[in-house]
């Protein structure tokens, strides 16, 4: 579309609105002024008849009513000078919906910001022990996290249980904060690192994996699966099956199953692979709320203590 044409069109409608508004308002005032020298016959009927016998007297209006009408005209003109109304003219006050929103957000930040910011100075474990922070974290959780992780944080198929002390991506405060702030993407390629497996081989490997955590498994299949495991799964899930929290590869030897412990489901997962995603909340919530949420989730049960820094060389300590 030709920009100049659009500009002219917008300009025309702008002018149209301004003209209509001003003519209407000033027109009312002019009309009123002209009518103030008009006359009528008080006490007489106007002559119109409705419904057979309903008529209307012509009686004078009080003067103060007329002055109030003029007052509304003045008010309207002053209002239009100060606020938007004359086309796209923003008015002297420069009010806008967006501007009002921004102003209110500033006030909200000044009011509520300190409540969250007070915890930024403390480390996650201290915050987790604070009852007020726990309540705030709980409300944040119900608002932002419960839709996937459940109202009791107990999780659902494909959404981890946050109460069980089992961490796919690591349960230290730093790792949890990273998960919340930056989100996570988990990928398992179909059939792991051995895409040429057939259905029977997949089943064998599944039985082996089941045996690692004590689930019912056919011993013959377990044997066959054990041979397939290093090629198909070990690169990510580890030779011992303990997984890798650095990349979110689950521990296959524990009793926690993100999807299902049913054989058919496990076969489906191995065959089709996995694409799981948690959206990032860092930018959306801001560092203070993420900090409070981290503490809450850490404190739900089973949060791991942060890894201690490497101790000074023993030789130096012996002095």
């Amino acid at each position, binding site marked *: 579309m030709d920009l100049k044409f659009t500009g002219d069109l917008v300009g025309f409608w702008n002018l149209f609105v301004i003209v209509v508004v001003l003519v209407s308002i000033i027109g009312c005032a002019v009309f009123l002024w002209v009518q103030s020298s008009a006359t009528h016959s008080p006490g007489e009927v106007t002559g119109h008849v409705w419904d057979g016998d309903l008529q209307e007297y012509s009686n004078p209006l009080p003067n103060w009513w007329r002055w109030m009408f003029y007052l509304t005209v003045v008010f309207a003109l002053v209002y239009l000078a100060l606020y938007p109304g004359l086309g796209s003219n923003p008015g002297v006050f420069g009010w806008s919906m967006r501007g009002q929103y921004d102003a209110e957000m500033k006030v909200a930040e000044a009011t509520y910001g300190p409540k969250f910011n007070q915890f930024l100075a403390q480390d996650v474990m201290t915050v987790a022990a604070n009852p007020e922070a726990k309540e705030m974290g709980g409300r944040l959780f119900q608002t932002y996290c419960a839709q996937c992780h459940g109202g009791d944080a107990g999780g*659902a198929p494909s959404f981890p249980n946050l109460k069980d002390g089992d961490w796919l991506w690591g349960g230290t405060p730093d790792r949890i904060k990273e998960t919340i702030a930056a989100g996570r993407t988990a990928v398992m390629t179909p059939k792991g690192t051995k895409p040429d497996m057939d259905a029977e081989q997949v089943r064998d490997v599944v039985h082996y994996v089941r045996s690692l955590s004590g689930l019912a498994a056919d011993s013959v299949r377990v044997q066959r699966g054990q041979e397939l495991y290093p090629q198909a799964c070990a690169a990510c899930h580890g030779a011992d099956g303990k997984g890798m929290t650095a990349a979110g590869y689950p521990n296959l030897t524990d009793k926690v199953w993100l999807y299902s412990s049913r054989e058919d489901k496990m076969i489906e997962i191995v065959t089709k692979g996995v694409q799981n995603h948690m959206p990032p909340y860092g930018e959306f919530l801001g560092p203070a709320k993420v900090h409070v949420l981290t503490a809450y989730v850490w404190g739900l049960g089973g949060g791991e203590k942060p890894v201690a820094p490497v101790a000074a060389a023993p030789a130096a300590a012996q002095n």
Partner: protein
Amino acid sequence: MNKQAAEPHPAVRLVQEEPLYKARVKIHPRTVSGTFTRWRWVLVWFTQLIYYGLPWLPWGERQAFLLDIANRKFYIFGLMLWPQDVFFLAVILILSAYALFLFTAVAGRLWCGYACPQTVYTELFLWIEKLIEGERPARIRLDKAPLDARKFGLRALKYGAWVLLALWTGFTLVGYFTPIKELWVSFWTWSLGPWETFWIFFYALFTYVLAGHLREQVCLYMCPYARFQGVMFDPDTLVITYDPGRGEPRGQRRKGVPPRSVDRGDCVDCGICVQVCPTGIDIRNGLQYECIACGACIDACDTVMDKMDYPRGLIRYTTENALEKGWSRKEMLRHVLRPRIVVYTVILLGIFAALVWAIAHKPDLRVSVMRDRAILAREVDGGAIENIYRLQVMNVTEEARRYAVSVSGIEGIRLDRDGLLEVPAAATQSFTLAVRVPPDTVARGAHTIYFNVRAIGNEEIAVHEKASFLLP
């Protein structure tokens, strides 16, 4: 400006031409005493004692009557109403409407003449004016007088008194919404909040302008009640009427003359009924929309009739039918009990009884059960199926309570934690509960279950709330 017509043709009827707008003529009602004036003042005392007095009454620790909008609670003595009870407000409004229809159909504009705040405050402001400026003749003289020291002083005193009364009225109004004792302290320590300040002065300004200056202009031009009274009245409604059959032809005569001896009706054309009228009409022209049914003209005329030794009631309460058909008082009153009145009364009593019953049975505990949407059903250790619920427990009473929760509806169903909940006074609290059903007990699908919440220590406060349990 009058348009001066050219020399009119003789066949043309000369009609008075006037401007479309007229300046308001200030009305100075003459003081009158009598039955109806007494009743008006009784109502003024009654309504204003309640209005100005109610916010000061205590109820334990708090104000007895408080509409705490900020905290979303209305306190009416022992009753605490929550937003969920707004239904009662609708019912009260309906009741008020039916009551209005009823007594207006019976005896006309009783509201206007006796109870309307406009009438009551105008009465009070007029009384102050009379106290300071004197009776009607003195007031008219003062209006016409040039502005000298005396007039300035009197007016200043009057306006000052009006302002004080208006401020007190505005202050009291805000005291219905903010605890009035604290408001009183804030007022004198200049620590009122912005909205409190605004409303006190806004309402004071309105009271001052409407009751002090506008007075009958409100009734004549602003209030819709005057206009739709036409549909509320019927030929059997008691209205204030001048009896032209008795009074016409009107004319002056000397006192002591027997009523039927001169060739005149009972009306001596003293004009006092016009002088006492607060809306400035002549009731002898018949019922007009301006008449607010205050009864001052009745009192005035009766006083004159007494002086003339004539029977009272030249201006009196009567009905259109009674006047037309010449009914006796007894016959007229018999027609008060007509179908319309009976229907209004029955409906009114019925709704009132229902309202009283509903308020008496208002629950002290409200429970909302919300299923966790993310988790339809979950399998836990041992194969049991778990559903998550969020219970919103509203403790409607004014003391903290502990509640015991249990579930029922499926064999073996239970909570996975102790069912003890604690909720502070007049508060709402949410609790997340996990409900478990042992495996293989019932069929798959949705099952109706019940949450039983019971107050510990008060068995009467209990709720049996329905919910749905899903087995995948």
